[in-house]
């Protein structure tokens, strides 16, 4: 390319303008902070945080550093995002397909669900699930046991903890089963392409993933026992469950509302993707003798995914960013722990907000990169 001065001129000026604006903001912040005697620096990250957090995936208490508190918040954000994306995808795909169902009731119900949940602000839904729905849950001492071992109460969901013996052998059996399935799928595909023979891959896969771990139990010495939560009295009318694993109601309410909300958008993406495949494709597939299942699996879905993936990526990004509404209901995510408590205790507003912004940016870019990679993988391979 060769640039002419009249091309470079405006671009150069834009760059200069952007640099000047940023320069001005930085300078302005510096002057104001100096006037008010505020130091700038990230040294506080290694100081003792001296506040506790309700729920953490890693070992943490107030004697750890602010950086550790940051990690606690980040992991909690990732946790609720992963749970949210998982359930939103399953529910979204189901509802999306249901919206195209010839069954009037299923079809209408799915449409109602989508219109209802996507048109109510997410924050209200979070408040609803946390304050209205969870409040209806019983106190720990009144809770009915679910399957005799789990308890859903206003203080959270208490489930048994797994206690493993020889967990590594069990883990190896799962790895072995996974490798075997990959090999068999590859062989089956080859067999189909060279000889036209079909293998029941799904059945074999299910069999492998069940049988290999079972063998590890029978002859590998793997033992699994449960630690069931036990009711403990704190005072005349206050109780708590001890032992097992407890999921705070804040996490449940947040994951639930994020999933229900985002699923509506994913459902629309899925519906658009399937409707985007011309009828002729399905008819052609059927005319060469494919079963309806094969039509969906081999002809419709591979093409529909190309339409579905890019807008669904947006929804995953939205869900991750929306998880920052956690602060409203005391779920200790990045915003509540780091941009909330840590910011208040240190007063390092610019530093902490910049770190938080950068973190969300990194999370979003990571999700985008992964989804782009997946999208490229399923895109039409031009030969």
């Amino acid at each position, binding site marked *: 390319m060769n640039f002419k001065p009249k091309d470079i001129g405006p671009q150069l000026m834009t760059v200069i303008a952007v640099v000047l604006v940023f320069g001005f903001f930085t300078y302005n912040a510096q002057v104001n902070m100096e006037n008010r005697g505020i130091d700038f620096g990230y040294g506080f990250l290694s100081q003792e945080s001296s506040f506790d957090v309700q729920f953490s995936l890693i070992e943490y208490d107030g004697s750890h550093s602010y950086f550790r508190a940051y990690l606690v918040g980040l992991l909690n954000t990732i946790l609720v995002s992963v749970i949210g994306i998982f359930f939103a995808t399953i529910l979204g795909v189901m509802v999306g397909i249901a919206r195209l169902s010839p069954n009037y009731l299923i079809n209408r119900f799915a449409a109602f669900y989508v219109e209802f949940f996507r048109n109510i602000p997410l924050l209200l839904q979070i408040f609803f699930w946390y*304050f209205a729905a969870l409040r209806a849950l019983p106190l720990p001492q009144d809770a009915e046991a679910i399957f005799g071992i789990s308890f859903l109460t206003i203080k959270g969901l208490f489930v048994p903890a797994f206690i493993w013996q020889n967990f590594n052998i069990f883990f190896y059996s799962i790895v072995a089963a996974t490798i075997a399935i990959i090999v068999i799928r590859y062989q089956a595909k080859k067999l189909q392409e060279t000889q036209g023979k079909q293998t029941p891959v799904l059945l074999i896969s299910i069999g492998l993933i069940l049988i290999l771990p079972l063998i590890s139990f029978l002859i590998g010495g793997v033992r699994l026992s449960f630690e069931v939560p036990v009711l403990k009295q704190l*005072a005349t009318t*206050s109780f708590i469950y001890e032992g097992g694993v407890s999921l705070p109601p804040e996490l449940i309410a947040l994951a639930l509302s994020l999933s229900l909300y985002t699923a509506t958008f994913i459902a629309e993406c899925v519906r658009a993707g399937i409707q985007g495949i011309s009828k002729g494709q399905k008819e052609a597939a059927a005319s060469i003798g494919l079963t309806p299942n094969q039509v969906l699996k081999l002809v419709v879905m591979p093409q529909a995914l190309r339409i579905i993936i890019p807008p669904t990526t947006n929804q995953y990004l939205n869900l991750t960013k929306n998880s920052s509404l956690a602060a409203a209901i005391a779920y200790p995510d990045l915003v509540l722990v780091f941009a909330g408590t840590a910011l208040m205790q240190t007063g390092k*507003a610019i530093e902490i907000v910049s770190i938080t912004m950068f973190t969300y940016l990194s999370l979003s870019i990571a999700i985008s990169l992964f989804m782009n990679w997946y999208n490229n993988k399923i895109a039409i391979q031009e030969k």
Partner: protein
Amino acid sequence: MFKYLKQLTSLVAMVAVLFTFTTESMAAKKSKTLKNTQKKGFVRCGVSQGLPGFSNADAAGNWTGVDVDVCRAVAAAVLGDANKVKFTPLSAKERFTALTSGEIDILSRNTTWTLSRDADIGLTFVGVNFYDGQGFMVRKSSGITSTSQFKNGISACTNIGTTTELNMRDFFNSRGISYEPVAFEKADEVVAAYDAGRCDTYTTDKSGLAAQRTKMKNPDEHIVLPETISKEPLGPVVRQGDSVWEDIVRWSLNTMIEAEEYGITSANADMMKTSDNPQIKRLVGAEGEMGAAFGLDNEWNLRIIKQVGNYGESYKRNIADTGILPDRGPNELWTKGGILYVPPSR
């Protein structure tokens, strides 16, 4: 010819601009915040999002409370009208940023005076308008009557971004009790969650507990435990770097407290001008030059007492008569067994 005329006018304009700039900066030297406040015609005051007795808005949007009265006193002093205040409700998390960024000029929001806040984050605390301490509230039915009955696994609801979170950790840690902190951003949500049974105890400043109790479904079902686990001197805060403004806010508060000490009320303030006691006369602007150093007239303190009242009136109106804390406890004058003691206005 026109060319020169144009240059001449621009020269005159430049000189004029320069001149106004220098005269302005002389006044600005006194206090930039004071100048801006008088130009705007109202005091910008940061308050809580609703804490009965301290800062609370009624259905019509009228703010009342002892924290609100500090801002009203400043408005009476610098603008002559206690109603010329613009209140900005702030969460605990937002409050300091709002002040340091210049969105508000006084933060009067039941804020605890601590070393790190005073020294680190560009703030200056000007005094104490309420001596408080952190306590715990529990349900009566729980049978708990003292914090010594707390057991491992207790869950405690509180606000984020307050000293409460730190004190709570110190308290439970020193007693070796494991606990579940459930921290919300807004006080209303803390109350709702505790009231629903999410937590076994609700912890914040005792005055806050007393005030929030009035918001519960059944206030009588809850009690505040007798123990106080921390010192929480609450007071107004200003930005660092404007010492004149800082003095105005400090002495507006001091005037209210000292007026009570000398028995000057909103009703008798005018009559006190003819008092024999020179200290009383100074407090109502009848003797000395008590306003000049702030760039204010001599009756600034008289206006505070007439329009807002003395500290005792403010306390009675907002905290005692509303049934929040009828007993003044440490917030009684030093002459009556409390610890309210301010330097003399002279």
